């Protein structure tokens, strides 16, 4: 069940992107027609600091193969310090998930600014490749959860 590393495995990644920076960067990638793998589903937050850790927990437990959190570079947060709080929360999530036997390297935090369309596309491409290597989330299809 967990070792289907076949070419048919297409990771499903849930992305939480902050409106001012990363989401705009993703738009720029699109506008520039920079192609990236279609494996992500984007949820737009106003700020990476708006990310309640329970959303990530939910994504992981529901079988997301990867979770991407995108925010403004440190010092550039539109709301002053939201990204610093997001960073702490991701650190906590990583520790908790690791202790519970879930690979924390499936949850990525990346600072991507509004003008880094290429970097956004590169990040998604890199993440999909990495997750493909790891295989499907071991939480996929778990019903006793």
């Amino acid at each position, binding site marked *: 069940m967990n070792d289907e590393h076949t070419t048919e495995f297409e990771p*499903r990644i*849930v992305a939480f992107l902050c*409106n*001012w920076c990363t*989401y*705009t960067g*993703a*738009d*720029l*990638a*699109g*506008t*520039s*027609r*920079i*192609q*990236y793998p*279609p494996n992500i*589903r*984007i*949820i*737009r*937050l*106003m*700020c990476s*600091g*708006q*990310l*309640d*850790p*329970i*959303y990530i927990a*939910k*994504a992981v437990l*529901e*079988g*997301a193969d990867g979770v991407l959190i995108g925010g403004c*570079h440190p*010092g*550039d947060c*539109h*709301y*002053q*310090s*939201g990204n610093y*709080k997001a960073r702490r*929360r991701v650190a906590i999530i990583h520790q908790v998930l690791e202790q519970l036997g879930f690979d924390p390297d499936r949850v990525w935090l990346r600072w991507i*600014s*509004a*003008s*880094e*369309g*290429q*970097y956004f*596309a590169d990040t998604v491409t890199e993440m999909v490749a990495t997750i493909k290597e790891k295989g499907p989330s071991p939480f996929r299809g778990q019903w006793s959860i």
Partner: protein
Amino acid sequence: MNDEQVLVVGAGLAGMTAAHHLAEWGAQVHLVDSAPHIGGAFLLLDHTFTTDSCGLCIALPRQPSYCPTISSELHPHITLLPRTTLAALEGEPGCFVATLHRGPRYVDPDRCDNCGACGAVCPVTAETGFFPKNQVSLQKAIYPPPPRAVPFAYALDPDACTRCGACVAVCPHGAIDLEAIPQEERIEVGAVLLAPGFASFDAARAVEYGWGRCLNVVTNIQFEHMLNRSGPTRGHILRPSDGQPPRRVAFIHCVGSRSAKLGRPYCSTSCCMITAKQARLAQKVTPGTEVTVFTMDVRTAGKGYERYFQRVAALPGVTYRRVMVSAVQEVPGSRNPRLLTPDGEEEFDLVVLAVGLGPADSARELAACAGVALDEHGFILPGDDGPGTTSRPGVFAAGAGLAPADVPETVTQAAAAAALAARVLSPILPTPSARGDERESKVLDQPPCIGLFLCTCHGALEGILDFPALAASSEHLRGVVHIERLEAVCEESGLTTIERAVAEHGLNRVVVAGCSPRLYANRFDALLARLSLPPRLLARVNVREGAAWAHGSDPAAATAVARGEVEMAATGLRETPYRAFHLRPEESVVRRVLVLGGGLAGMTAALTLADLGVDCDLVEREARLGGNLRESHHTLEGLDAQALLAGMMKRVRRAEQVRVWTEAELVGWSGVQGDFTAEIRVGNETHSEQYGALIVATGAEPATTTEYLYGQHPCVFTQRELEQLLADSQHPVSSIQHPASSVVMIQCVGSRDEAHPYCSRVCCSHAIKNALTLKHLNPAVEVSILFRDIRTPGMEELYYQQARRLGVRFLRYEPPERPVVEADGDCLRVTVHDTLYDETVTLEADLLALSTGIAPLENSNRALAEMLGVVLDDDGFFAEAHPKLRPTDLARPGIFLCGLAYGPRFITETITQARAAALRAALAVARPVEPRRDIATVEADMCSFCGLCVAACPYGARVLDEERRFARVLDHLCQGCGVCVAVCPNGASRQPAFEPVQALALVDAALNE
């Protein structure tokens, strides 16, 4: 009405800032720029000192703001006119007629969607101008916009274009018209604001430095562009010759500045800081880089700049060398630049020339068309009413077009010029926006009926997304009762279609699948009002940028993504909880401003407020107004300070809207913007007054010293004391009338040392002013100035040159070796080690003048800061909200700052800053602050009163209500960021615009197959 219209020429930082301020004031602003995009030089920049970040969005009047280039498109009061210049200006203040030359843009921004088909077929490749000769950024004659450009569409370089027409043929939207011809347009405006910006000195003219000849010699602007993460090298520093990161970088200062020979005698003000920043970033980007800065003076005299410079100079691997470079040659083979200095030859990997800033290329023409006078360098000359005015009444100016300026000065000048322009316009009473969140209660009790509208973007998306499949797969989504395909949702026809469908099918939730939700915000806001729907019941799905365009090479995948995102949105809407949400009605605002401090800054601010139609109270601690200005006599430029003072005091007394309190002190302060309560004590009585905003203009004091025998010897004075003596014709300082008399001045006494690490900015000019006065009184007098750096920014440099020509001697000392002063009877003996000639010199002085600088009012600043709930900076001056882009704001909303309380300032700078602060204060009280739609709320009975939300909020928008035992949201301070919601463990803190139920449902739906 033409006197509610304003023309702003130049849409760089100054132009955009001024435009936004005027737009907030209520004027209709025509924002014009000759380029195809607005943004000016700021589009190049990424890291600006001293924060080393962009943060351009913070320059706007209302916080938090979106990028001003983007906001310019969104603000309803701003009309953008790219590729437009001013051709003529007729009329008078209040009724100008401006003739605009609308150059053809050739590419229609409303039709272009950046698909790039045109660029692919364009046969012409040209240098971008940033990097000549086989460099990193060549571009076609039709080229994509920079990442943050507005309008965000391709642009055409008419000089490079051969008119072959290949692009026209391939453009799928017919957006290109090569036949377009210029148009002329006449508009009627009440005032005009010129912000033409700057042009970098053409480094090729400094032939000896090899720019254009040696590949690895670049200008600081080119270096800056490399640092830009979305620039040609994506933020990496690379040598043009081989694309490798340089290990040894040399910076050369003053290329095209302080040079009469090159026709650039003035100082460009910002380059020293630019170099310091670039040195630091060079090491950050490529660790281990060795940086050498070749310079004479280091002019880091702005607020916080000296500290920044000292930190950079102390970095391992960074060296500042006080020596000039005579030439740069290229080593064959390696193409390394080799520098020739008096110390010999040195080889580097990359040389960066700190080129000066001059007037824009278009400045002369613009000045001629606008009918304003320029000085001999090409900068706009100020008019009678001081900085910001021009020789023509009703026409104002701001930014680098006046003189080289850094970002804080530019932003301040822009707000000040906006204040001057606003005075000319008829009084505008801003109207509050429409409210209507009672709409929510209508739909709450109904089961969800979702309408899905799929936009094809004029058919463009039909080639990529399978719309029939999209529609078919959406039919099974629970809650979706209506699906419709539209050509253009953003246009009136599309909006009307939606409106009709909602009424016909009883829809209470709407999903629009089309372009990015960041676009057309205004139109969808209007749609919501028409639908009587609260914002959170309309979801916009990004199937264009996020699906069709990003995955266009695989249409099946693109459709799958679109389907997934539609399902997410529909699910999220369906699960949106039934909960009433009412915004509190607007509260009134007190339209009165308290100006604390009756010196130059305070009086200027009060008069500006009065001119803007805002009542104010001017509170001064002493018995007389005037502050430090009372001790000033004239400036270097010859401004008569006493006359200025007398004139201001008269106008203040006469101004009906200004109530003056003297011998009065602020002893208590509470409340929020729009509703402050102040306790003012006069004598034994304390008065309680209401204000909407506060301007802190409490000034500073001349620093004193115990060094160099000051206070012990009768011939040792401070510069200010010397100025008084020289002005007092009744008692001339007799010693200096003697033909052989000698005056010595020591700079940086008690500045730039451990006790006061900051630079007091004005002392070098002050010393030179006194030196010139001395020379005027007695040409034979010997004047020697002992300095560390001569900091005469901008045009002050010319007076420095004049002093040298008149024979004033300048000797450079470097700590820890300081001058030594000994008494010699009635005279003094001063010994100094001159580092320029490396010899110790002893001077006999009849008079010693010490430049002691400006000190903050330590005790009263601290007490005031605590009372207001704001902070002081490391040097004891008030700390502004943002060092670059909000220099006149304190961190608390509604409290502003100007004058010496901010830090050492010249008189003209104080006037500019006071006007800027006054405008911002006026905007703060112009209308009640509307709570945003996405603010947070608290379910009081769920709140555990833990205070985590209070700690999390960066805006101070949460307070603990002890009585009712819950955390209350201060609506007008809340910016809707949601951090408080994320930190609250049980959801007592929530954001109706984005509920956890919705978010969890989105996550869920994202994982459906």
